[in-house]
Protein backbone atom coordinates (compact mmCIF):
# COMPACT_ATOMS: atom_id res chain seq x y z
CA UNK A 1 0.00 0.00 0.00
CA UNK A 2 1.40 3.43 -0.94
CA UNK A 3 1.64 6.13 1.76
CA UNK A 4 -1.19 8.04 0.05
CA UNK A 5 -3.42 4.96 0.03
CA UNK A 6 -2.59 4.21 3.68
CA UNK A 7 -3.38 7.81 4.70
CA UNK A 8 -6.65 7.84 2.72
CA UNK A 9 -7.67 4.52 4.25
CA UNK A 10 -7.03 5.89 7.77
CA UNK A 11 -9.01 9.06 7.02
CA UNK A 12 -11.95 7.05 5.57
CA UNK A 13 -12.09 4.93 8.73
CA UNK A 14 -11.94 8.10 10.82
CA UNK A 15 -14.77 9.73 8.87
CA UNK A 16 -16.84 6.59 9.33
CA UNK A 17 -16.13 6.47 13.08
CA UNK A 18 -17.18 10.13 13.41
CA UNK A 19 -20.62 9.46 11.90
CA UNK A 20 -22.66 10.71 14.91
CA UNK A 21 -21.17 14.20 14.43
CA UNK A 22 -22.65 16.83 12.10
CA UNK A 23 -21.11 16.71 8.62
CA UNK A 24 -19.34 20.06 9.04
CA UNK A 25 -17.56 18.88 12.22
CA UNK A 26 -16.58 15.56 10.61
CA UNK A 27 -15.13 17.40 7.61
CA UNK A 28 -13.09 19.73 9.87
CA UNK A 29 -11.65 16.89 11.94
CA UNK A 30 -10.77 14.78 8.91
CA UNK A 31 -9.20 17.80 7.13
CA UNK A 32 -7.13 18.65 10.21
CA UNK A 33 -6.00 15.03 10.59
CA UNK A 34 -5.02 14.99 6.91
CA UNK A 35 -3.06 18.21 7.44
CA UNK A 36 -1.34 16.58 10.45
CA UNK A 37 -0.39 13.54 8.33
CA UNK A 38 1.08 15.77 5.60
CA UNK A 39 3.11 17.83 8.09
CA UNK A 40 4.49 14.71 9.79
CA UNK A 41 5.23 13.09 6.44
CA UNK A 42 7.17 16.25 5.50
CA UNK A 43 9.25 15.59 8.66
CA UNK A 44 10.05 12.17 7.14
CA UNK A 45 7.88 10.18 9.51
CA UNK A 46 6.31 7.04 8.02
CA UNK A 47 2.53 7.07 7.64
CA UNK A 48 2.28 3.90 9.73
CA UNK A 49 4.11 5.64 12.60
CA UNK A 50 1.86 8.70 12.30
CA UNK A 51 -1.21 6.45 12.49
CA UNK A 52 0.23 4.77 15.58
CA UNK A 53 0.78 8.16 17.23
CA UNK A 54 -2.83 9.13 16.56
CA UNK A 55 -4.22 5.76 17.60
CA UNK A 56 -6.74 3.54 15.84
CA UNK A 57 -9.27 5.76 14.02
CA UNK A 58 -12.13 4.44 16.14
CA UNK A 59 -10.24 5.16 19.38
CA UNK A 60 -9.06 8.58 18.16
CA UNK A 61 -12.64 9.43 17.14
CA UNK A 62 -13.94 8.59 20.61
CA UNK A 63 -12.38 11.74 22.13
CA UNK A 64 -14.31 13.95 19.68
CA UNK A 65 -17.54 11.98 20.07
CA UNK A 66 -17.50 12.17 23.88
CA UNK A 67 -16.84 15.93 23.74
CA UNK A 68 -19.71 16.39 21.34
CA UNK A 69 -22.15 14.21 23.25
CA UNK A 70 -21.55 16.00 26.56
CA UNK A 71 -21.44 19.47 25.00
CA UNK A 72 -24.76 19.02 23.20
CA UNK A 73 -26.39 17.50 26.32
CA UNK A 74 -25.21 20.51 28.38
CA UNK A 75 -26.29 23.02 25.74
CA UNK A 76 -29.73 21.41 25.36
CA UNK A 77 -30.34 21.50 29.11
CA UNK A 78 -32.79 18.55 29.03
CA UNK A 79 -32.48 16.65 32.32
CA UNK A 80 -33.35 13.18 30.86
CA UNK A 81 -30.75 13.64 28.13
CA UNK A 82 -28.08 14.86 30.59
CA UNK A 83 -28.87 11.89 32.86
CA UNK A 84 -28.66 9.44 29.93
CA UNK A 85 -25.29 10.92 28.93
CA UNK A 86 -23.90 10.80 32.48
CA UNK A 87 -25.10 7.19 32.88
CA UNK A 88 -22.80 6.11 30.06
CA UNK A 89 -19.80 7.13 32.21
CA UNK A 90 -20.82 4.86 35.08
CA UNK A 91 -17.94 2.67 36.10
CA UNK A 92 -15.36 5.09 34.71
CA UNK A 93 -14.14 6.47 37.99
CA UNK A 94 -15.37 7.01 41.51
CA UNK A 95 -16.46 10.62 40.91
CA UNK A 96 -18.56 9.64 37.87
CA UNK A 97 -20.34 6.83 39.70
CA UNK A 98 -20.82 8.55 43.08
CA UNK A 99 -21.85 11.80 41.42
CA UNK A 100 -24.42 10.03 39.27
CA UNK A 101 -26.00 8.23 42.23
CA UNK A 102 -26.09 11.45 44.27
CA UNK A 103 -27.85 13.20 41.38
CA UNK A 104 -30.38 10.34 41.16
CA UNK A 105 -30.96 10.57 44.91
CA UNK A 106 -31.60 14.32 44.72
CA UNK A 107 -34.09 13.85 41.86
CA UNK A 108 -35.77 11.05 43.80
CA UNK A 109 -36.14 13.32 46.84
CA UNK A 110 -37.46 16.11 44.59
CA UNK A 111 -39.99 13.72 43.04
CA UNK A 112 -41.13 12.42 46.45
CA UNK A 113 -41.77 15.93 47.79
CA UNK A 114 -43.54 16.90 44.59
CA UNK A 115 -45.78 13.87 45.06
CA UNK A 116 -46.50 14.86 48.66
CA UNK A 117 -47.64 18.31 47.44
CA UNK A 118 -49.89 16.67 44.82
CA UNK A 119 -51.42 14.14 47.21
CA UNK A 120 -52.22 16.54 50.05
CA UNK A 121 -55.47 17.86 48.46
CA UNK A 122 -56.53 14.29 47.55
CA UNK A 123 -55.78 12.64 50.93
CA UNK A 124 -55.79 15.56 53.39
CA UNK A 125 -56.03 13.25 56.43
CA UNK A 126 -53.14 11.00 55.44
CA UNK A 127 -50.63 13.52 54.13
CA UNK A 128 -49.07 15.82 56.69
CA UNK A 129 -46.54 16.34 59.46
CA UNK A 130 -47.41 14.62 62.74
CA UNK A 131 -45.73 14.55 66.11
CA UNK A 132 -46.81 12.94 69.33
CA UNK A 133 -45.59 10.42 71.84
CA UNK A 134 -43.54 7.92 69.83
CA UNK A 135 -44.76 9.52 66.61
CA UNK A 136 -42.79 11.58 64.14
CA UNK A 137 -44.10 11.31 60.60
CA UNK A 138 -44.07 13.44 57.50
CA UNK A 139 -45.46 12.73 54.06
CA UNK A 140 -48.00 10.09 53.05
CA UNK A 141 -48.58 7.79 56.04
CA UNK A 142 -51.03 5.29 57.45
CA UNK A 143 -53.61 7.02 59.63
CA UNK A 144 -51.53 8.09 62.66
CA UNK A 145 -52.68 7.48 66.19
CA UNK A 146 -55.30 9.84 67.50
CA UNK A 147 -52.80 11.27 69.99
CA UNK A 148 -50.56 12.58 67.22
CA UNK A 149 -50.96 16.20 66.20
CA UNK A 150 -50.70 17.38 62.62
CA UNK A 151 -48.92 20.73 62.43
CA UNK A 152 -48.86 22.02 58.90
CA UNK A 153 -52.28 21.50 57.35
CA UNK A 154 -52.34 22.83 53.80
CA UNK A 155 -49.10 24.75 54.45
CA UNK A 156 -47.47 21.43 53.68
CA UNK A 157 -48.14 22.06 49.96
CA UNK A 158 -45.94 25.17 49.52
CA UNK A 159 -43.35 23.68 51.86
CA UNK A 160 -43.19 20.40 49.92
CA UNK A 161 -43.04 22.29 46.62
CA UNK A 162 -40.18 24.45 47.92
CA UNK A 163 -38.19 21.38 49.04
CA UNK A 164 -38.94 19.66 45.70
CA UNK A 165 -37.77 22.68 43.70
CA UNK A 166 -34.66 23.13 45.83
CA UNK A 167 -33.55 19.49 45.55
CA UNK A 168 -34.37 19.47 41.80
CA UNK A 169 -32.23 22.58 41.35
CA UNK A 170 -29.39 21.09 43.42
CA UNK A 171 -29.59 17.85 41.39
CA UNK A 172 -29.41 19.79 38.13
CA UNK A 173 -26.47 21.92 39.29
CA UNK A 174 -24.62 18.77 40.36
CA UNK A 175 -25.49 17.00 37.09
CA UNK A 176 -24.14 19.89 35.00
CA UNK A 177 -20.97 20.01 37.11
CA UNK A 178 -20.57 16.24 36.72
CA UNK A 179 -20.88 16.43 32.93
CA UNK A 180 -18.33 19.24 32.74
CA UNK A 181 -16.02 17.22 34.98
CA UNK A 182 -16.43 14.13 32.76
CA UNK A 183 -15.85 16.12 29.59
CA UNK A 184 -12.59 17.53 30.96
CA UNK A 185 -11.44 13.96 31.47
CA UNK A 186 -12.83 12.51 28.24
Amino acid at each position, binding site marked *: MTPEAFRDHYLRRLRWALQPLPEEDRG*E*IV*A*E*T*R*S*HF*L*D*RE*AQRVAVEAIAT*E*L*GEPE*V*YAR*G*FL*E*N*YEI*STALAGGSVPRMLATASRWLGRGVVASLGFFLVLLLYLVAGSWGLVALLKPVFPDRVGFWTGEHVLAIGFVDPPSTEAVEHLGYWLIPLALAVALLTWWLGTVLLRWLLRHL*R*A*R*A
Partner: protein
Amino acid sequence: MDLGSWRSQLRKGAAELAVLAVLSRRQRYGLEILQEIVEKGLEITEGTLYPLLNRLQRDAKITAQWVEDEGASHPRKYYRLTQEGTAFLQAMSGEWATFSTGLSRLIKGDAP
Protein backbone atom coordinates in the same frame (compact mmCIF):
# COMPACT_ATOMS: atom_id res chain seq x y z
CA MET B 1 -2.42 3.73 42.04
CA ASP B 2 1.01 3.11 40.51
CA LEU B 3 3.41 5.87 39.44
CA GLY B 4 2.59 5.53 35.73
CA SER B 5 -1.13 5.94 36.29
CA TRP B 6 -0.60 8.93 38.61
CA ARG B 7 1.74 10.57 36.07
CA SER B 8 -0.83 10.02 33.33
CA GLN B 9 -3.57 11.70 35.41
CA LEU B 10 -1.25 14.60 36.22
CA ARG B 11 -0.40 15.18 32.56
CA LYS B 12 -4.00 14.93 31.49
CA GLY B 13 -4.98 17.54 34.06
CA ALA B 14 -2.20 19.90 33.00
CA ALA B 15 -2.72 19.49 29.23
CA GLU B 16 -5.39 22.20 29.01
CA LEU B 17 -3.21 24.75 30.81
CA ALA B 18 -0.22 23.82 28.63
CA VAL B 19 -2.19 24.27 25.38
CA LEU B 20 -3.64 27.63 26.45
CA ALA B 21 -0.19 28.83 27.58
CA VAL B 22 1.35 27.90 24.21
CA LEU B 23 -1.42 29.79 22.39
CA SER B 24 -1.01 32.89 24.57
CA ARG B 25 2.05 34.00 22.63
CA ARG B 26 0.80 33.64 19.04
CA GLN B 27 -1.53 31.58 16.88
CA ARG B 28 -0.34 28.06 16.14
CA TYR B 29 -1.51 24.89 14.42
CA GLY B 30 -1.89 21.49 16.11
CA LEU B 31 1.52 20.00 15.33
CA GLU B 32 3.29 23.22 16.42
CA ILE B 33 1.44 23.15 19.74
CA LEU B 34 2.28 19.49 20.24
CA GLN B 35 5.96 19.95 19.48
CA GLU B 36 6.35 23.02 21.70
CA ILE B 37 4.81 21.17 24.65
CA VAL B 38 7.01 18.11 24.06
CA GLU B 39 10.12 20.32 23.69
CA LYS B 40 9.48 21.68 27.17
CA GLY B 41 9.73 18.14 28.52
CA LEU B 42 5.97 17.68 29.01
CA GLU B 43 4.03 14.90 27.37
CA ILE B 44 0.91 15.09 25.29
CA THR B 45 -0.20 12.74 22.54
CA GLU B 46 -1.89 13.53 19.25
CA GLY B 47 -4.88 11.49 20.38
CA THR B 48 -5.29 13.80 23.40
CA LEU B 49 -4.36 17.12 21.79
CA TYR B 50 -6.79 17.30 18.86
CA PRO B 51 -9.94 16.37 20.85
CA LEU B 52 -8.81 18.89 23.51
CA LEU B 53 -8.47 21.63 20.87
CA ASN B 54 -11.92 20.65 19.59
CA ARG B 55 -13.39 21.02 23.09
CA LEU B 56 -11.66 24.35 23.78
CA GLN B 57 -12.98 25.65 20.47
CA ARG B 58 -16.49 24.44 21.30
CA ASP B 59 -16.24 26.25 24.65
CA ALA B 60 -15.15 29.47 22.86
CA LYS B 61 -11.82 29.52 24.72
CA ILE B 62 -10.02 29.43 21.36
CA THR B 63 -10.96 30.15 17.74
CA ALA B 64 -9.58 28.58 14.59
CA GLN B 65 -9.04 29.49 10.98
CA TRP B 66 -7.59 27.67 8.01
CA VAL B 67 -4.45 29.34 6.65
CA GLU B 68 -2.45 28.62 3.49
CA ASP B 69 1.15 29.13 4.67
CA GLU B 70 3.63 30.26 2.07
CA GLY B 71 5.48 27.24 0.71
CA ALA B 72 3.18 24.72 2.41
CA SER B 73 1.49 22.08 0.26
CA HIS B 74 -1.77 22.24 2.21
CA PRO B 75 -3.80 24.55 4.47
CA ARG B 76 -3.35 24.33 8.24
CA LYS B 77 -5.84 24.95 11.00
CA TYR B 78 -4.46 27.73 13.21
CA TYR B 79 -5.77 28.34 16.71
CA ARG B 80 -5.69 31.51 18.79
CA LEU B 81 -6.95 32.45 22.25
CA THR B 82 -10.21 34.35 22.61
CA GLN B 83 -10.76 36.97 25.33
CA GLU B 84 -12.57 34.31 27.34
CA GLY B 85 -9.65 31.92 26.84
CA THR B 86 -7.15 34.59 27.95
CA ALA B 87 -9.13 35.26 31.13
CA PHE B 88 -9.42 31.52 31.76
CA LEU B 89 -5.67 31.06 31.26
CA GLN B 90 -4.93 33.81 33.80
CA ALA B 91 -7.26 32.19 36.32
CA MET B 92 -5.73 28.74 35.71
CA SER B 93 -2.18 30.11 35.99
CA GLY B 94 -3.00 31.67 39.36
CA GLU B 95 -4.50 28.40 40.62
CA TRP B 96 -1.50 26.49 39.33
CA ALA B 97 1.01 28.83 41.03
CA THR B 98 -0.77 28.49 44.39
CA PHE B 99 -1.07 24.72 44.02
CA SER B 100 2.53 24.08 42.96
CA THR B 101 4.01 26.42 45.60
CA GLY B 102 2.00 24.76 48.37
CA LEU B 103 2.85 21.27 47.19
CA SER B 104 6.56 22.08 46.84
CA ARG B 105 6.61 23.41 50.42
CA LEU B 106 4.89 20.26 51.64
CA ILE B 107 7.38 18.01 49.85
CA LYS B 108 10.38 19.99 51.12
CA GLY B 109 8.87 20.17 54.61
CA ASP B 110 9.12 23.99 54.77
CA ALA B 111 7.37 25.94 57.48
CA PRO B 112 4.21 27.69 56.16
